[in-house]
């Protein structure tokens, strides 16, 4: 029983984790992309459609990543080249994604889906309890952790990460030192799009292998909130995502047990709990201030 609960926690947390880690990189570069939900839902529908048509889950995943990147490239063009308002452009991207995905997905409603296979890691997956939980997941769960570790290493241990953080902290200075703010931000936005697309694929190919309109159900927004409350630190995003997953699953069980608590209250619980806990851990204001990208959301126009 406990094992089964843990398994569902992992599946509930993974899409949030993947989308949030992508957005974290975007925000570290100083760009606020509110289009995560839109890119995610596009990833979900394109991933499902391609997997359904070709019969290959991997192709579906690749297509979903491509869809997320295409959406983010549009956003990058708007905010970096046309210097449009980031908040408005991000909101428009979400609305566009929700509408477009509904149109593309119309033919796939009720079509049985394809579930990504679980990877059984030899020997380790046979371990009692730990085996099924840790070593018998689908590939994307491992990818999510690899992403967190990779992003964390990249941000704080490599030159690429240093340049990325410098652009987010003070784009005028980065420009004066000769770094291309636009290029760095463009790449960061594309990475964020790829992650959001992948998170969408997880929704439609692993979490619930089917297409339902609006199936991301606000997870893109939760991912955005996670990044802020995690003070832009990758490992804190993991904590937030798993907490959200855990409370989500607990509320299902609570409803099944019939505690007599209104279901509306229960379904709001994951959101509430995640925010409360992350507010508490981000109470160290100094740490938060130092980690907040100072140029977040500010448009950059280089001198002539």
């Amino acid at each position, binding site marked *: 029983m406990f094992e089964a609960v843990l398994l569902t926690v992992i599946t509930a947390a993974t899409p949030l984790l993947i989308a949030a880690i992508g957005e974290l990189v975007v925000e570290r570069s100083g760009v606020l992309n509110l289009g995560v939900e839109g890119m995610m839902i596009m990833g979900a529908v394109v991933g499902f459609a391609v997997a359904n048509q070709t019969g290959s889950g991997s192709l579906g995943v690749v297509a979903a990543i491509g869809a997320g990147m295409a959406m983010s490239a549009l956003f990058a063009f708007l905010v970096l080249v046309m210097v449009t308002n980031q908040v408005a452009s991000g909101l428009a991207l979400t609305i566009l994604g929700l509408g477009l995905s509904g149109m593309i997905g119309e033919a796939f409603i009720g079509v049985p889906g394809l579930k990504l296979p679980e990877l059984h890691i030899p020997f380790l997956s046979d371990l009692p309890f730990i085996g099924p939980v840790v070593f018998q997941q689908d590939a994307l769960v491992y990818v999510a952790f690899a992403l967190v570790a990779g992003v964390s290493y990249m941000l704080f241990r490599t*030159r690429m990460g*240093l*340049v990325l*953080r*410098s652009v987010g*902290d*003070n784009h*005028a*200075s*980065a*420009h*004066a*030192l*000769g*770094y291309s703010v636009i290029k760095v931000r463009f790449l960061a936005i594309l990475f964020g799009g790829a992650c959001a697309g992948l998170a969408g694929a997880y929704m439609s190919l692993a979490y619930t292998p089917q297409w339902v309109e609006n199936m991301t159900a606000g997870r893109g927004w939760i991912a955005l909130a996670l990044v802020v409350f995690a003070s832009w630190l990758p490992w804190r995003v993991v904590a937030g995502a798993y907490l959200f997953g855990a409370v989500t699953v607990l509320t299902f069980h609570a409803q099944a047990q019939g505690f007599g608590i209104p279901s509306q209250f229960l379904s709001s619980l994951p959101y509430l709990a995640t925010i409360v806990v992350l507010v508490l851990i981000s109470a160290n*204001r*100094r740490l938060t*201030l*130092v*980690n*907040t*990208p*100072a140029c977040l959301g500010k448009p950059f126009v280089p*001198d*002539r």
Partner: protein
Amino acid sequence: MAGEEDRTHAQKRPETGTLLDARGLTKRFGDILANDRVDLAINTGEIHALLGENGAGKSTLVKMFYGSLEPDGGAISWQGRTVAITSPAEARALGIGMVFQHFSLFEALTVAENIALAFPKPGNMRKLAARIREVSEDYGLPLDPDAVVADLPVGIRQRIEIVRCLLQEPRLIIMDEPTSVLTPQEADRLFLTLQRLASEGCAVLYISHRLEEVQRICHHATILRHGKVVRECDPTRETAASLARMMVGTEVMGVSITDHEPAIGRTRLALRNLTSPATNPFATELRGINLDVRAGEVVAIAGVAGNGQGELFDAVSGEVRVGPDMVCLDDGPCGNRDITWRRRRNAAFVPEERLGHGAVPGMKLSQNVILTRHGTGDGLSSAGFLSSKMAVGIEQRIKKTYDVRMSHDDPEARSLSGGNLQKFVVGRELDRKPGILVVNQPTWGVDAGAAALIRQALIDLARSGSAVLVISQDLDEIFEIADRIAVISRGHLSGAEDARTMTRERIGLLMAGDAEKAGAA
């Protein structure tokens, strides 16, 4: 061109040893010719001053040397070879380093990370940290590579910029107004470093408004006016007045204090044990500040940036509320009142940051007039309606009296150059003839002529019976206008002393921490 005739060669320039030679550099921004066929040669081991008013084209010129701007015409040769410097990285590769006026530092990063960003291949961070320690101590500018910049005071931040330059082993260092944020003692240390660099064969291009400094350390000076070179000279053979005349083109009026023994009246602004906790990790706590500013006098607060000036200004103006008795205006306690309440009682405030704090960038100047004066009895607002006609009238008056130059009528605040906007935000409050005026950095980034105008207006306002409190980091300015001088250091304020008996050395000591003892005493 006009500059050609009156150029003299005060000093014979050796043909050998020319490090950087710019010929006919031209840069155009839209209709404005920022640099018009500028010739400039810098020799090895020379400290070369670049002088000029705001908007004379100094920054544009050095940005072309540093590769941040591309010239529209002319050529730069470096060590005898014509080069195209298309990026800062290329400038650094040639051996040109720059210390920026507004620091180009990343506050959230450590000292070592900031320095690493200036190198194409910084290598191992630990080795870099060791190099930073070694070089910074060698030049007497010690730095902790692991400190986060946000935690460091301005003087140390400038050290980071300088050490970053030194680590690149530059042949030419460009310094843009380096001493504007330093105590006199820190400036002296900087001069020693520069002289040592020059003796080692490194050239320095030194931009400054402070003519005494230029005379003290520079070997050669080039003077720009309206984008053209108007003179070259040996600054040691000139006087500060003659240098200023070359910069402005006409005689610069010093301020005239008609009345050296002003008629001091009652106390109009009183701070009583003003205490206020730091509102964020980078702010300064105010610790028991006492000060009286009386009718008829100008009191100046000196201090290095970041010692509580901003916090003090916020408490006095009402942006931050404190205990009612801690701030008293004419009518009595107001420490818990808001800024409009205080303005209605004849007080006026000019904050340090003019764009975004002193003026709303996207609003027209006349609308900015309304923002600080809607409640002050100018009739700008009646029964909830605003009179934009009247606002434009006031804006026109400020424009005329304080010589605010604008390209068209009533522009947005952001379209004004820094110096012009400063004239506007100071003029807006002076125009009211307030009984109590508190101004933070009244002439920051304003050229000599306009600075003299603003300073004279502050003195005249005081002599007409107002109390004027000036917070400034510019000691020359303070000695020019103040009747009494106090020094702020880490949130403590020393007692105000008579300006005639105060010395720079004493101010320097108070800045460095003696203010705490003096304030407590």
